[in-house]
Each structure stands twice: as structure tokens, then as C-alpha cells.
């Protein structure tokens, strides 16, 4: 890997962020930033321009922006943004909503490292549209 791909991790739980970071860094990805709420995610995306975002879709509402809203906001800013949704099981409609908004893939919590890495690899491999 010539230059490590930069990943922004968005999750309201510190524990989750750390776990995801650990899994991703072990594979050689660079964690360029972390966000704990939707609006922070949008803000950090604009600033850091990561190659990929992992985003928990259910986060505490802050400033009227939820996970879906954050996806929409990021896609509006960068239509080719690569966002992977992390969601607990059973939130199909939310996930579908996020995909409609432009998310490229999703993984379910509890996150299985293999699945997460597969998703990251796949999404990074897909051409920017």
C-alpha cells in the first residue's frame, strides 16, 4: 500500500470507536479522525477529506442532525464519498434509507472484523462515482 487510506470513524461510543480503530489499523489503514455525533462527522469529513467513513447510524441527536442526515450532508458535500454504515440488527429501514442517501455498504453490530474489512476493501476498490 503506497499511501495508507484514511478512515474517519463515527460512533457515539468511545469503546466502539477504539475497537473499530484497532481492527482497521491492524490492516494498515490510517484513522484520520473520530467523531461522536452526526454534526461532528460532517464537520470532520469536510476538514479531513477521508477516503472512507464508518458511521454508526443511530446516534444521539445533536443540532437536529441524525445519522441519515449526516450521510446526506456528506454526500451533498462530496457525491463520491464512501460511507459504510454500522448498525445493529433489525434496523433495515434505516439502513435502506442510508443506502438511498448514498451509503456504499453496511455492517452489523456487533462488528465482525472480517466483515468490516471486507466491506472496507470492497468499497475502497469500487471506482469513485
Amino acid at each position: 500500500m503506497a499511501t495508507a487510506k484514511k478512515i474517519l470513524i463515527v460512533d457515539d461510543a468511545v469503546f466502539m470507536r477504539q475497537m473499530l480503530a484497532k481492527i482497521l489499523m491492524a490492516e494498515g489503514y490510517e484513522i484520520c479522525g473520530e467523531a461522536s455525533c452526526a454534526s461532528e462527522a460532517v464537520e470532520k469529513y469536510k476538514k479531513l477529506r477521508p477516503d472512507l467513513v464508518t458511521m454508526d447510524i443511530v446516534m444521539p441527536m445533536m443540532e437536529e442532525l441524525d445519522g441519515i442526515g449526516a450521510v446526506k450532508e456528506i454526500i451533498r458535500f462530496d457525491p463520491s464519498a464512501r460511507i459504510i454504515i454500522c448498525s445493529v440488527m433489525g434496523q433495515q429501514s434505516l439502513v435502506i434509507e442510508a443506502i438511498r442517501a448514498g451509503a456504499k455498504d453496511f455492517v452489523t453490530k456487533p462488528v465482525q472484523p472480517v466483515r468490516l474489512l471486507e466491506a472496507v476493501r470492497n468499497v475502497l476498490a469500487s471506482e469513485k462515482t
Partner: protein
Amino acid sequence: MQNSYRELFLSESQEYLANISKCLVRLEKDPSDQSAINEIFRGMHTLKGMSATMGFEKLTQLAHQMEDLLDELRNRRKQLTSAIIDTLFAAVDVVEQLLDEIKENKSSTTDIIPIIETIQRHLSEKEVISLKENQTQPQTINIQEKQDFPFNSEEVSRLKTFLSQGNFLFHIFVHLNKDCVMKEARAFLIVTALKRLGEIIKAIPSIEDLKEGKFDLSFELFLVSKEEQRVIRQEMANISEIEGVRVTPVSLPKEMVSQQQEVSQKTSVGAQPSPVYVKKIQSMRIPVERLDKIMNLMGELAIAKIRLAQIVQTYKIEPLEEVVFLLDRLISTLQDEVMQTRLLPVAYILDAFPRVVRDLAHKQNKDIDFSIVGGDIELDRVVLDEISDPLLHLVRNAIDHGIEDPQTRKKAGKNPRGRIVITVSRQKGQIFIEISDDGKGIDFKAVRKKALEKGLITEEEAKELDEKKVFDLITLPGFSTSEKVTDISGRGVGLDVVKSKIESLGGRVDFETKPGQGSRFILTLPLTLAIIKAMLVNVHHEVYAIPLMNIRETIKVHKRELKYVQNFEVMKVREEVVPIIRLDRTLGIVGSSTMEDEEGRLSLVIVEYGKKALGLVVSSVIGEQDIAVKPLGSWVKRTKGVAGATILGDGRVALILDIMSLM
């Protein structure tokens, strides 16, 4: 669960199952027969759905497993082996068993675990090709056949528009990972990804169903795109949790890829109907009782018409004559049509036979080529119901006693593969069903020996045993030349039962055999039991109908010719002693006059049933007529001597005599 649903469920399930068996046999002959697999899959799928609705758990479970296996086969992820075919056959048997249990309303004792384990073993055998890596794909799908055509007219017109704009059509088959979570979201993701490349013309199941997760692990999409196959495949390869995906270009019938002007012309003017490929409902299910009711009402309508005609004639109401004439024509046409609804193709029962033949042949290590000719010929469903067992018996007989094993056949200079053919044909309101085999034929010597042993014939008779005599002998109850009773034809149903069953339907059994060359049974049957030919007779003032098939002759005899044998009246008719029944006494009809005419002569109708004859004394013979048989109400059902009723042209009711019960 309500009974009415259950019955519907049962009849429908059995239909599906019969078709599945048929397809299985087809599949065994030609393992590449994809349409057979599809049909079986669809059948199983429906069966699963129905039994789940009805709450039959075992059935649902088994059907589900079978469906899984078939799905693998259908999508060519699994090679069809003879072991799998055997498993499928075995599974069908278990399904049948389960249905029987449901039918008999008893709690299920069938153990489905073994068969399910077998199916699962097949499923887990890892020969699944990961489609992702499999680059050797089928080149193109050709959609030419109308029946395979998956699009409706609206989709067709959309398709045409896209194709005329330089798009290509692709068939995309997606199979998700078994442990894929939130498959609806996954499917949506795939659909969304593909939409970036083009337009989805059709999804199977529909996009809505996909979004709601109403699919197993795989689905199909038809995509129009300007991109190449490779690009689409690449896009799909970058989506997680897909076990396999197959992208295949689709070529369409020529007229589909025509120029756009033509397209718009066609669709706007509509001069030429644009191809509509949606299957129209061609047939529907009607309860048999309803058909019977319609048939009955038809009869009554016909009678009302006759009365109207009589009135018009009696009062000479000319303006009505033409109307009555028209009415007459309409009603008879209608009657014909209604009659048709009672008819079903013989294939309805014969379809199950190939399976039986296959199983029995397997069991006995015989190689048998079984074919049915004329399965589309139609017969009254009541007759069909009744002949199913006798036919099956004859076929079993042919396999068991007729066809020799391959070695013996080879030695005899025959094709090691035996042949059994059922030929159905129709001639003038009669149906002929012929069951022929090219086996060893009936062994006259064995029959003779057995008949002598049992004292059925004398040495004298034994010398001049011909075909007819042999047939008479082998149709005697309990007569079997087979040394050992096999579980095939030695089930207690003998040829005698076959014969009496067919005769009770007003039919006949004929038989030909050539030692070493095979045997042939010919069943002659009436087209329907709803309308029969009958002789109308008077018993005092009452009219009775005697089925013509039972009548040997009508004669007039002087009462002096009647003799008594131990208080029974008998008469000698051509060397045969015939018991006499005075219908007025038997039926309890009191008349003012005696039955004999001025010269003391009696009218006798000699009827026969099986081998026995009977002389019925009647007041007078009216004549022959076609009558519509109507069932009797339950309160008179058990009346001895009466089989049913009919309504005569003048509105009077005539009872139909049941000859068998008079014997």
C-alpha cells in the same frame, strides 16, 4: 382448520405432487432438462406455501428442504446426480405419506428426519462453484420461447425504448451469503449499485419484495445498461456478502430489437397487438359438486323446455314456435358444453404411472420403457376415478408377470428393454384403453395346470383351452398362476376385481395374449356415466329404466314356461336356467291388473351382470332412450334395487334399476 380448505388443499397438493413426480421421471431420463427442474421447484415452492398456511409443519419443513435442494440444482450450483434424483423420489414419497395422513385426519407418525438429513447431506456436499470466480459463464441467454418470456407488455415497451437507445440487456443472478444479515438492505444496496449503471427492467421477486426481504438468498434482475458485462461484474464483485453473481447478456427475439420508429408506431397505433407475454388465466378450479349441480339444473331446464314445446304444440301458439326451436338448439348446445366440463384428460390419472413403473422396474431389476399414447383424451371424471386402480393393477401385472428380466429377454432374442404402452382412443362415445406389453405373455400351460388343480375345468376342457377360456379363468376370484405373491401384483386385487370394476362402469375387458410376445388388455368404457342408454319399462303404472349395458334381450314367454325350483321361479332360456324376478313384488308396486297379457304371456327382460343372468318380469317395454342419471337423495339411497333416477320428457320421474343389487 376448516374442512373445506383442507379438501381444497389436499386435492391441489396431490395435483402438484403428481406433476412433480412426472417431472422427476422426465428429469431422470434427461438430467439436463432445466424446465423439469424449474417445474419441480415451483411445485415444491407452492406446496410449501400452502402447507405453511394450513399449519402442516412437517410437510412445510420437508418441502422447504426440497425446495432448497432444487434451488441449488436450478441455479446450477449443484450437479444433478442420480443419488439426488433418488433422494427427490424418496422425498416425494414421504410428502405423499404426509398428505395421506392429513387426508385420513390422523396425527402424523411419519418420521421426516431421515429424509431431511439426506437432503441436507446433499446440500452440504461442497461442490458449489463460487460464481464470483467462475468466469466461464454461459455465453448468452436466448429468450425466444414465449413461455420463457419474463416480461409483461409494459416492461416490453420500456425495454424496447432502452434497447433502441443502444443499451444492452443483462440477466443478473445474485446469490447472497448464507450468513448475510439484513438481506433486504443488502438487496437494496445491490439494486442501488446497479441503478448507477443502468435501469432495472424487472426484478424477480419484485423490488418491493426484495426490500421487504421476501426472498430466500437469491434473486434475479434484468438490467439494461450501456456498460459492458465486465463492468457490471466488477461492480458486483465490490459488494460484500455476495456468495455468487452471474451476469449474462440476454438476446431477445428479433422483433424486440427493431428500430424505434417501428416501436412507437406499434405502441401508439396498436394496429398490431404488441406481444403480451403475461400468462392469462386459462383454467380455474371449480368444485365438483358445483358441476354436478349445473348438470342437474341442465337436465331440469331441458325438461322445462320439452313441456313448453308441448304447450306450444297443443295450443298452437305460432309466435312461440320459433322461440321454442331456438331454445331447443341453445339448450342442447349448452348441455354438450356442460357435459364437457365433466371431462378430464386421462393423463390426469396416467401421469402418476411413469413413476410407478420406474419404481417397480427398479425393484425387480427390469428395464422398462413405458409410454402413454392419447393421454389427452377426455373421460368423465367419475369414470376416471374408478378406473385408476384397475389400470394400475394391469400395469403392475404387466411388469410383474409380463416383462422378463433383461437377461431372459436377451436370450429370447428380444430387446433387453421391455415395453409397456398404454394407448387411449375414442370411438363413438366409447373410450378404449389398451395396456400392452411385449413380455412373455400368459403361460397357457400354467393356467391349465392351475385350473385342473383347482378343479375349475375338466381334462376334456383343458385340451381345448383358447384365449377366451384362459381369460375367463384368470379373471376368476383368487386365481393366480404366480408361484410367489409379490408385493407388486399380489395385493389381493386380482384380475377379477379389475373385470368387475370395469363392468360395473358399463365397460368391458378384452384380452389377447401371444406366448413369448406379450399380452394386451383392452378396456372399453363409456364416455360418461351421467348420460346412459337405457330401456324404459312399465311396471304397472310406474316407469323404470334399465341400463342397456345390462340387458341381454327382451322376450315374451307364456307363464306356463316358468318353472319352480325350490320355491324360486326360474325359466330355461336356451339351455340356461335363469332365475325370474317379478319386479312388481320385489319393488312393492301394487297394480290393478296382472302383469300378463290376454294370452297369458309375460314380458321378460333378460339382464346380466358378470356371468349371471336374471329375468325381470315387466308389464310392458316402452323403448330405448338416453337418460340423464340423477343421484338420489340420501333418504332413498339405500333402497334395494334402485341406482338412481331420471326425469323423463313429460316431467315424470323414472327410477333406474340397479341390476347388481337384484342379483
